[in-house]
């Protein structure tokens, strides 16, 4: 039997109160049964309606509380209907709940719901949706209040959270509508302050973020998504271009210390938030000074992420009281156990810097011209070390690293730079604009080919790679069509350099057995989590297949893990979001002696699993202004030898404002009764 008594979610009314048994898809698959593993979710109220699990919940009181929280905590007051209308809504509901209501008040509520269609944004407007649903579908409950009848209803606790589609989709949950609005108001400095509340590497994620947020932008339902990433860059560039000092003021120094392994996005982000709270952090970085930034520095080429700008973000973090000890390998120069002894808490964020083997014949032979891997190639090129690259370079892979390799190969002086990928361009996991960029620079693509064997001459020098043609078959688990070899189609691609770039693994050899820290078969660190199940009985996991609500504490007390080594190789923004949570958990552990997630964390996870964005939503708006794209240097010369100048140039401020004005500011308020 369905565990849902009533649902109006998604504008589809399912009413099981009189004994029906219709299932509610969202409740069954998307929502957990419990809030944080213990308390059952009794009702869920939000922008798209009401889901009532427990028929004993007082829906009228819940609507009244919802309206109150919207008006008092979230309504920005920047438009008249929102500011005043939700206040009238709140007070009207309060009057009814207080026994002072009359039937006319119900008409007022519906009228207000209509008037709120005129709001500047859709926060207050959509807050009227569930309220109106209750008036329409729970009229008897309202009338009971109006008649002064006492009804015995269940006492519940409310959990409330505001989000937005883009913010929800962003792994770091940056308050995107707020920073976009600040740009609209020519407040670039305030915009950056908002960004930094959840993104301490704004210049990086203003440039190289794959911006999943833009795939959840409601403006796309009108025309095209807001250029969220470049707006972030605009705010971040404004600060250094105007020689402004970052405004952050860390709290007074505390006496408990934290060691962080790795000065990559996760390590830096965690250090930033811990330093803001006053905790002295020491980051141990294996690379020498000047090469901080982890995968951002050694994995993302300078034409995408100019070094002085990355370094500025790192310097800002250092200036907040974070010490970075370079050139120090954990497990070699100092052991993890020693770190544990020396510091009150340890965060492991070593990243994933080891290329996966490709599985071709001759891979283990140590041939000249067969390089260790894409990530190693990028690192050496960036550090100015000899890469072993020749003139005709083949890179194997379809991800962003592979694309970075072919584009860096050109800049390192390759005459031919060829990408070999076993599926087609459409299936490439690399960001499409990166592939386009490589194309523009003269990279050659060989799609639907699988390298089989390395061809060498008598001096063990690579002269080519034998490949087999592929064709696409049925879709696999990832939804992409599975490539299959075409028998007898073997051919040779001539090259003097072959670089495998099919993925990276963390190098966790420093985590010794004595630590007791368990490692997954994907070579990531196991962390503790709160198990959550859907009504259908399935475990709730994130997109990477990890448990949804992880505490990020490893099997060793006081040792936490974050970043690619915890999630699995992903993105800068995912590492930052993950590390921000780790920082908060570490602080709780240091101050209260236990590592746990808060209601807000759980609520965040529940919403992100639910998915705030609905690509089928009809969004009425006049599509008068199309998306503004940033300026870019074009032509092959941008990839000439030694030219690592930035290719993308960002917005002019005025373009940023025009783009920001397109934002529909889609805040949504969610309330869960437990």
């Amino acid at each position: 039997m369905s565990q849902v008594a009533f649902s109006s979610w998604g504008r589809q009314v399912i009413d099981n109160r009189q004994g029906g048994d219709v299932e509610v898809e969202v409740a069954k698959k998307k929502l957990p049964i419990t809030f944080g593993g213990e308390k059952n979710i009794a009702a869920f109220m939000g922008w798209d309606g009401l889901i009532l699990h427990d028929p004993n919940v007082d829906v009228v009181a819940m609507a009244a509380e919802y309206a109150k929280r919207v008006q008092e905590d979230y309504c920005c007051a920047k438009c008249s209907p929102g500011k005043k209308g939700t206040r009238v809504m709140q007070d009207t509901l309060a009057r009814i709940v207080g026994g002072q209501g009359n039937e006319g008040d119900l008409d007022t509520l519906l009228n207000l719901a209509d008037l709120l269609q005129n709001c500047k944004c859709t926060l207050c407007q959509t807050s009227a949706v569930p309220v109106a649903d209750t008036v329409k579908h729970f009229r008897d409950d309202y009338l009971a209040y109006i008649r002064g009848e006492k009804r015995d209803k269940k006492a519940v606790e409310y959990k409330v959270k505001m989000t937005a589609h883009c913010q929800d989709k962003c792994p770091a949950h940056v308050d995107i509508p707020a920073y976009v609005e600040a740009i609209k108001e020519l407040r670039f400095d305030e915009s950056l302050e908002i960004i930094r509340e959840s993104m301490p590497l704004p210049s990086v994620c203003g440039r190289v973020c794959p911006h999943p947020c833009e795939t959840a932008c409601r403006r796309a339902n009108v025309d095209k998504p807001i250029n969220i990433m470049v707006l972030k860059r605009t705010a971040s560039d404004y600060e250094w271009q105007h020689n402004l000092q970052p405004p952050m003021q860390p709290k007074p120094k505390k006496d408990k210390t934290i060691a962080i392994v790795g000065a990559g996005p996760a390590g830096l982000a965690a250090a930033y938030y811990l330093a803001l709270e006053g905790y002295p952090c020491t980051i141990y970085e294996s690379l020498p000074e000047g090469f901080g930034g982890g995968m951002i520095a050694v994995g993302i080429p300078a034409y995408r992420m100019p070094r002085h700008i990355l370094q500025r973000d790192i310097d800002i973090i250092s200036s907040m009281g974070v010490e970075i000890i370079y050139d120090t390998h954990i497990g070699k120069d100092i052991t993890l156990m020693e770190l544990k002894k020396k510091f009150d808490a340890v965060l492991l964020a070593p990243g994933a810097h080891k290329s996966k083997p490709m599985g071709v014949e001759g891979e283990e032979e140590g041939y000249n011209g067969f390089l260790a891997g894409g990530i190693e190639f990028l690192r050496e090129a960036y550090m100015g070390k000899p890469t072993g690259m020749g003139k005709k370079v083949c890179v194997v892979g379809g991800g962003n690293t592979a694309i970075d390799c072919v584009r860096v190969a050109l800049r390192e002086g390759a005459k031919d730079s060829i990408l070999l990928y076993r599926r087609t361009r459409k299936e490439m996991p690399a960001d499409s604009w990166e592939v386009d960029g490589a194309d523009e620079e003269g990279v050659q693509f060989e799609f639907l080919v699988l390298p089989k064997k390395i061809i060498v001459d008598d001096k063990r020098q690579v002269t080519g790679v034998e490949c087999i043609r592929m064709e696409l078959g049925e879709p696999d688990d990832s939804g992409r069509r599975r490539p299959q070899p075409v028998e007898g189609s073997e051919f040779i691609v001539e090259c003097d350099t072959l670089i495998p770039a099919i993925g990276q693994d963390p190098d966790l050899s420093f985590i010794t057995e004595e630590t007791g820290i368990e490692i997954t078969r994907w070579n990531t660190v196991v962390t503790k989590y709160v198990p959550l199940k859907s009504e259908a009985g399935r475990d709730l996991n994130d997109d990477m297949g990890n448990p949804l609500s992880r505490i990020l504490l490893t099997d060793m007390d006081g040792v936490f893990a974050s970043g690619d080594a915890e999630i699995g190789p992903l993105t800068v923004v995912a590492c930052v979001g993950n590390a921000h949570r780790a920082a908060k958990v570490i602080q709780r552990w240091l101050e209260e002696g236990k590592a746990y997630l808060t209601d807000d964390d759980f609520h965040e996870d529940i919403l992100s699993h639910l998915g705030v964005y609905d690509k089928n939503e009809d969004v009425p708006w006049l599509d008068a202004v199309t998306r503004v794209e940033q300026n870019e240097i074009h032509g092959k010369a941008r990839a000439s030898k030694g030219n690592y100048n930035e290719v993308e140039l960002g917005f002019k401020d005025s373009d940023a404002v025009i783009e920001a004005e397109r934002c529909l500011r889609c805040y949504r308020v969610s309330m869960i009764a437990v």
Partner: protein
Amino acid sequence: MVSLTIDGKSVSVPEETTILEAARQLDIHIPTLCWLQKVTPTGACRICAVEIEGVDRPMTACDTPVKEGIKVTTQSEKLIRTRKQIMELILVNHPLDCPVCDAGGECSLQNICYDLDVTQQSFKSENVNPDTIDEWPLIQQVPSRCILCEKCVKVCHEIIGADALFINDKGDRAFIDKKVENCVYCGNCVSVCPTGTMISKPFKFKARPWALRKVPSVCTYCPSQCQIDINVQGNEIFRVTSDDEGTTNNGNLCIGGFFGYSYVNNKARLSEPQVNQELVSWEQAFETFVADVERIKSESGAEAIAGLSSPRLTNEENYLFQKLFRAAIGSNNIDSEARFGALQTLRALDKGLGLRGASNLLSTIGKADAVLVFGADPSAEAPAVEWQIHEATRRKDGKLVIANMRQLKLTKFADSQLTYKPGSEIALADGLGRLLLDRGLLDEKYLSKAVANLSELKKQLAAVDLKKVLAATGLSREALEHAADIIGQANNVAIIFGADISKCSLGTAKSAAIANLAILSGALRDQGGLFPLDEKGNMHGLLDMGVYPESLPGFQAYEENKEKFSRAWGCQLPAGGLDAEGILQGIEDGKIRLLYLAATNPQSFPNSNRWMKALEKVEVLVVQDIFPTAVTKLAKIVLPGVTFAEKSGSVTSLDQRVRALEQAIRPVGKAREDWEIFAELYGRLAKKSVTFSRSSILSELSDLTSLYGDVCFTGEDRLRPCLKQPYRPADKSFQYQLVSVNEEAEGLQLLSGKSLSHFGTTSTWAPAPLEIEPEGLIQINSADAEAVGVKDGDALKLTSGTGSTIGKAMVTDTVPQGLIFAPYNFVELGIQQLMPDGSNRTSVQLARA
């Protein structure tokens, strides 16, 4: 162009036009409440919602751009009902205190309720309006009247760049709050407030708007010369307002314009003539003056008589002043405080560029791609210039380079701040010029067309030693290159320079270096501009009228044109003539026996002690002023003149517009308009009955000079200021000037300059600016303060070669180590005593006091 139909009428408008603007072209009225043309649209009130075919929600006309082919409906039953209901919501808990509300009678909320026929209230809610905010100086905030339209917030941020106002709290409790430390008290929040939320405390409860008579006039506190309306009832000024439409300042004012008028009403004003410190009749005063002049003339000749005029006086008054001296008294010993600044700049610009004043209109700054602000603080010297800089660099994509010894209010908006060492202005200008060359940023074609001595220019540039430039300025090569790139890569460059250049001891040479940079950067092309600032209201009019010994009106060299004027005026003009320094020396030598100070106070001249001592020696000191000062105490004859509000006449702005003042109130007591006094004295001395009127003076001017185009005198309407003859340099007319002098500033330097809230010494008689800045503070870097052992607010003693003073320290890192800044506006602080002759900067010793 985009075509659309609104209410069935077709219209074609440029892209990016809003539906509201398009509707206005069709004379279709869409109601608005929060919309304010001069700031970005807010879309707060939602009253302007319209329907667009195919879009299933109302769209606000004010912030929705047009789209090809859309069909817009501005009036429908639903829209009308919605607008009414939104108005009802806005009015929930709006207080019914309209009878005593300051905005009563000029309230947009009242008007729109009337227009939309909002006569009932269907909503009610708890009143959660925050309490009235009384603790802000000068401005009161009444949140219950606020409709949160954000006009004030936007004007404060976008136009003024103060960023003081913001929305605090959430929901219906939200109100406009202020970061008080950021407020510059310009009063624009009060001006734009559509209701009685933001209130001027000095005006509150004083008058009803409809009872006030609005007299069009000009604010003469600074040479921006904003166009204002003096709001008068009886013979008293109650407030100053300015319209957004039709004024060159778009209705914006600064603390001077908005709050600074109150000196006019000050009870301390001089209201009766005095002779020997006794109140006398005008007749007695005139007779004494004439007798003294004639006596001294007969004893020592007219060359024993001298006069200093003032940028506070109108064009007509300055014209009469010089004519009085040259034609009626027979002395060419006339000068003014322009000697210590504006004249130095004029000499350099005239010589190198044939330019007298600014080369273009202020509005060209707002359109510039790059603005260089060199040795100027526009926020203090000419706020309207600052607003244009915000327009160029924040509303548009222009870049801002600031070269200054100090950090300014504008610094946080600068793409490049070059904080140079005191005295290194020439090196810096040269260095920037050289880098323009080195970095291939010179427009050779333009230069060869415009410059007379191109080979000399190249030789000079090649001779610039960048290493020396870096050493002299204390700047990094990267910083200079970055600035040069910004300037060199821009199509339209505006260069603004100010008191730090013009008033220093090498003002002419430094101005010449800037003139050279203007040539190299292309700032003198049609779309650019060179803007010398001088913070005194009618400085340009004073110079135009030739109130200095070297020149007759219209910049006609004195000796060469003496005969022409002699013929016209029917007299023989005297030979020679002393400038201010010569006059001072002459007094000290006993050669000048009568000195006429017209609306000018030597207490604010450099080396003011020397002036004050000299004044004690003057046998007949004649002071025409509006307030009793240490100088009037020394005077034999005191003639009470009037303020800008009590006279008519014309003034000339820094960008060469001529605007008319209209008399708004009668002179206080027996005070007389200054030009009447000059005219009376002229008549008595010339022994002919003369009648001067504004039009007769102007027609005399136009016969004798080519300052003005004909257009100038066609209308008296202040909304149409006329332009002087625009600057149109001929081909090959620019002279690149050889600037070889240099100076090295040794030891701790004291720089004097203009305060942010005060204008000359006049505003120190106005209560409102005094409430914000009651005294002159000595700005000192934290390291220097620590070295001498003073903390913020401690007394600090400054001693230079010419004098010493004690004042309160303000410890701030906006001044670098080694530099101290103090405003000259406060006679009490008396910083000008420490300045050497003709200088704004000196070595100084510090001590705790």
